[in-house]
């Protein structure tokens, strides 16, 4: 995929690189033509030659200017097109229904791969074109220098690299220091945003002074690192200037002697000095474009890892027969889990060990494959159906369900076959009063991840969304944990009414919800250990009573 993305931009990037080389050739041409003007026209006071050479100078400037203008556009086009393509590819892979990348601790890394690594891979083109241009410039300038004088050319071409390599040796630790400096600065900035992000908590505790002290320590640490790095920076800058100056002095001296002996012309002497000054740039850039390429390669590896990550679940391609009745059967799943939920039944599930709850939810959501035993819906085995077909029939709304940026009503109706029934869903989720109280009612925008709502509001919105899916089988996990007692009781009654005729599973320990269930299953040690109505289990199962009652 990565390679295909590059191949599509190959022509654009190649064109850009050629134009970059032509730009560099123009840059070389400027000091040479300027030297020729002095040598041929000014020394001889020949107006005709002056005009001719100035026209040549104009041509050189036009070449370098237009080469850069269009080369830059092409290279940037290749860079941005690749970045765009990779961002879309990465998103497609990360959001793929069959999963495989959804470990929650990875989220931050995935976001940074999709947002920053994709861009760094794209900038391979910039680094490559820059490198090609530098190399081209080097070759052209060397040819010109050798043409002026073999001795002088060799002096420069043999003398320059070791000097620059030496300077690079000074740069390398500098780069490390620079990175350390960036890390420290990022750390200090992270401390600041983190403290301000938790400002309400700090204020509630009266811990502002302690927080200020903490930041001051981080800031001073960052200051010390910056100052340390700047010392090295200063040495490098000083050496750079001094060595370059000495090099120019040497070339001028040697060139001057050759010119005095009549072996090169004045123009050639001036051109040699100008070219030496020019050559330092491309040589440095050649080194840094190598480092850029290395960085891009590291990013490319991370991108490739994500794109080629194995899927978490395998799928068939069967669809379920419409209409889905919603009869769910587990047969010896993972060795010991057997249960049966009749079509249209409203079942509560109490897991004494939360791990059992998560395993059940993951299997129903098809976040994991059923490797042992059989799960069927209306008699059709889970693995034989397409994931999207399955999820059209079975909606599993997680406890920490996320909301998305957009209008409140759009969040609720994101998967709703009957958007006109919005009011019913909101009422059943206990979100009607809350929606009415929002600044613009149901049209109120919700910021990313639903942050503009409180925890309780988010939970009721997510519940309304789950209900709006009208899924033949709806699975809810602790849907009312952040809701007040009175509202929870109302939700329990309305919820069971709204879902009547459709299969509903609620994984919870909330008595209010369990009380309205037709039947409650108790899970322990990977299998069903109890079954009955809520009131019966309270009496008959002491472990259940303890789990459900505070």
């Amino acid at each position: 995929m990565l390679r295909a993305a590059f191949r599509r931009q190959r022509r654009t990037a190649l064109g850009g690189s050629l134009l970059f080389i032509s730009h560099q050739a123009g840059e070389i041409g400027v000091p040479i033509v300027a030297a020729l003007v002095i040598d041929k026209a000014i020394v001889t006071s020949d107006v005709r030659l002056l005009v001719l050479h100035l026209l040549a100078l104009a041509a050189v400037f036009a070449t370098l200017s237009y080469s850069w203008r269009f080369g830059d556009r092409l290279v940037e086009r290749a860079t941005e097109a690749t970045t765009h393509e990779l961002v879309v590819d990465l998103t497609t892979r990360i959001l793929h229904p069959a999963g495989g990348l959804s470990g929650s601790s990875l989220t931050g890394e995935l976001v940074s791969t999709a947002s920053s690594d994709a861009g760094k891979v794209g900038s391979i083109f910039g680094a490559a074109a820059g490198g090609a241009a530098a190399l081209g410039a080097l070759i052209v300038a060397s040819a010109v220098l050798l043409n002026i004088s073999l001795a002088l050319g060799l002096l420069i071409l043999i003398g320059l690299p070791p000097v620059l390599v030496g300077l690079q040796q000074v740069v390398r630790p500098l780069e490390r220091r620079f990175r350390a400096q960036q890390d420290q600065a990022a750390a200090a900035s992270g401390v600041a945003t983190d403290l301000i992000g938790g400002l309400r908590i700090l204020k509630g505790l009266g811990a502002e002074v302690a927080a200020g002290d903490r930041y001051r320590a981080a800031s001073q640490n960052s200051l010390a690192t910056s100052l340390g790095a700047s010392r090295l920076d200063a040495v490098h800058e000083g050496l750079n200037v001094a060595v370059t100056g000495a090099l120019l002095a040497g070339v001028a001296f040697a060139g001057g002697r050759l010119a005095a002996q009549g072996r090169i012309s004045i123009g050639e002497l001036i051109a040699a000095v100008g070219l030496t000054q020019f050559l330092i740039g491309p040589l440095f850039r050649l080194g840094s474009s190598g480092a850029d390429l290395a960085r891009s390669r590291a990013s490319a590896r991370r991108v490739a890892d994500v794109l080629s990550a194995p899927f978490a679940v395998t799928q068939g391609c069967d669809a379920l027969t419409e209409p889905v009745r919603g009869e769910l059967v587990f047969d010896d799943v993972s060795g010991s889990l057997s249960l049966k939920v009749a079509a249209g039944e409203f079942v509560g599930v109490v897991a004494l060990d939360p791990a059992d709850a998560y395993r059940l939810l993951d299997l129903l959501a098809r976040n994991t494959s059923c490797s042992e035993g059989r799960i069927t819906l209306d008699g059709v085995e889970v693995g034989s159906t397409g994931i999207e077909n399955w999820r059209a029939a079975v909606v599993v709304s997680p406890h920490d369900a996320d909301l998305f940026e957009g209008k409140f009503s759009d969040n609720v109706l994101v998967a709703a076959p009957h958007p006109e029934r919005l009011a019913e869903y909101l009422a059943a989720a206990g979100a009607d009063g809350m929606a009415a109280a929002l600044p613009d009612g149901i049209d109120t925008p919700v910021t990313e991840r639903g942050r503009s709502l409180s925890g309780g509001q988010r939970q009721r919105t997510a519940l309304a969304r789950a209900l709006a899916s009208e899924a033949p089988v709806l699975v809810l996990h602790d849907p009312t944990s952040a809701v007040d007692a009175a509202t929870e009781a109302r939700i329990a009654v309305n919820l069971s009414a709204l879902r009547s005729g459709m299969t509903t599973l609620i994984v919870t320990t909330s008595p209010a919800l369990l009380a309205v269930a037709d039947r409650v299953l108790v899970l322990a040690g990977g299998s069903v250990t109890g079954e009955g109505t809520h009131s019966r289990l309270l009496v008959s199962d002491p472990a259940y009573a303890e789990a459900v009652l505070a």
Partner: protein
Amino acid sequence: MRPTEPQPTEPQGRVILPIASRSETVKTLAGIVRPHRLRGAVMLSVLLGRATLGLAGPLLLGSIVDLVVEGNPVNDMLRPFILLLVVAAGEGILAGLGTALIARFGEPVLATLRERVLDRALGVPLSDIERAGTGDLVSRVGDDVSAVSEAIRFALPALMGAALSICLTIVGLGVLDWRLALAGLCAAPIQLYTLRWFLPRSAPLYARERLIKGERAQQLFDSIDGASTVRAFRLSEPHTSMVRTRSRAVFDLVLQTVKLQSRFFGRLNLAEFVGLTAILIVGFMLVGDGVITIGAVTAAALYFQRLFDPINILLYLIDEAQSAGAALARLVGVANLPGPPVSAPQDEGPAITSGLSIRIQGLGFAYQVGPPVLHNIDLEIAPGERVALVGVSGAGKTTLAKLIAGIHEPSGGEIRIGEAGMAELGSDGIRRLVCLVTQEIHVFSGSLSEDLRLAKPDASDGELERALELVGAVNWAAAMPDGIATVVGEGGFRLTPTQVQQVALARLALRDPPVAILDEATAEAGSSGARMLEAAASRILKGRTSLVVAHRLTQAASADRVVVMEEGRIVEVGTHAGLVKAGGAYSALWKAWSFSRS
């Protein structure tokens, strides 16, 4: 607050943070720079010295050319050669010194500024934050500080260096001959025109680019972080296409920016050509008249060619300097807010840990816009008593809690804590006595022990462990990879919402206030987590005067007294048992809650 600019207000009366005016920014910055002014002067003279010395190079190269033209003996070139070496060494030393001095001047100024901004940000009253949110403040201490730092570290030295070498080169040309300087200045009108053409076009484009890149990043975060929900509701395709749309918008805009930039540099190339040509023509005429030597023209051409880069840098960076200026104005706006209390609350006066009552009389409250939220509240909480506040969402429980915590000021009536009224206590006094823990889930990044020490900086490891023990967190805390030294929070070890709230309660235990207010502090955890947190809260609240906003009635049942609120009024007060027996509103709530619990 200082009488500065009028507070910018958003529609709906939402107060946002101030942005400093230009003169205020300059004044504040001057205040920060003043202690470092000597260092600044030394830095400027070193930079000036370096640029001046830099003029000698082309002059000496020109003199070598003259020696060749005049046919002088080869050995005469030794003198300019040695001088060139000396100049190179001197320039190197001054360049290194300049770089070091820029950092020694700029970095401490930067550190002072960012520390002051954070100090002031910490001092913003909670009522303002409740209204405006923390987003703006976070972006100021984060993005704006970074933007200003980048500018001070990279753009400012480059700008100063470029400006100095441009000015001095013109002087250098003038030293060769004033007509050469005039010829060089032929480029200036084109450059000024280009700049005036570029800036009004680039600024909005750059602003839009930042905005659109931000939108792309936000969409990526929204979709990827919510991937499990995206899959559950079969939203993979719509979300991928939203990312595609926003990513495509970035693509289009970046290419537009590149196009503008390449035209900008194209026009600057024209200026370079015009300037260089003018110098060569003037040189041609002056040499023809015998006014100057070939070497002088060579030096002039070298001078001018050396200017290409600094001029491009200067013109290009003006843009960045402008946006850094905007960020700076936002920082100074915060830096000039009143600061936080000078000392930590626990440092003041003798510690009072118990024996404080809360008396509320005739309390009323309304937000700036909107109808009254609380009406005529009377309530007395005895020293050490635990009162639970119950009612449906929107009944005014949280508002009452915030008033007692001193976050908002009542519009009528009064609150007394112990013997003192809120006004006598002042915000420092209230914070010394009252702590508020809300349902907000946030664990500070850094080690767990650092997080806890925010509540009590001098706490020993033993104290931290006792606090964790009290909230039932000691087992999982010890089981983390590095125990309480484990890094938690963003990018660190992930804690569950229950664990985060345990940490919040442990902070409360360490802070040890006489009055504690819990506003649905257990709400974000699942039901089993909530039970654990309630037990922890009970242990911590023992002996403290406390008010618990309860969303689970078990919290009410275990409180000394229950207060029921409806539509901003207290409708029932009594013990749990008494209210259940009384058959009123609470009794109905309890029945619904415990329907089959017994």
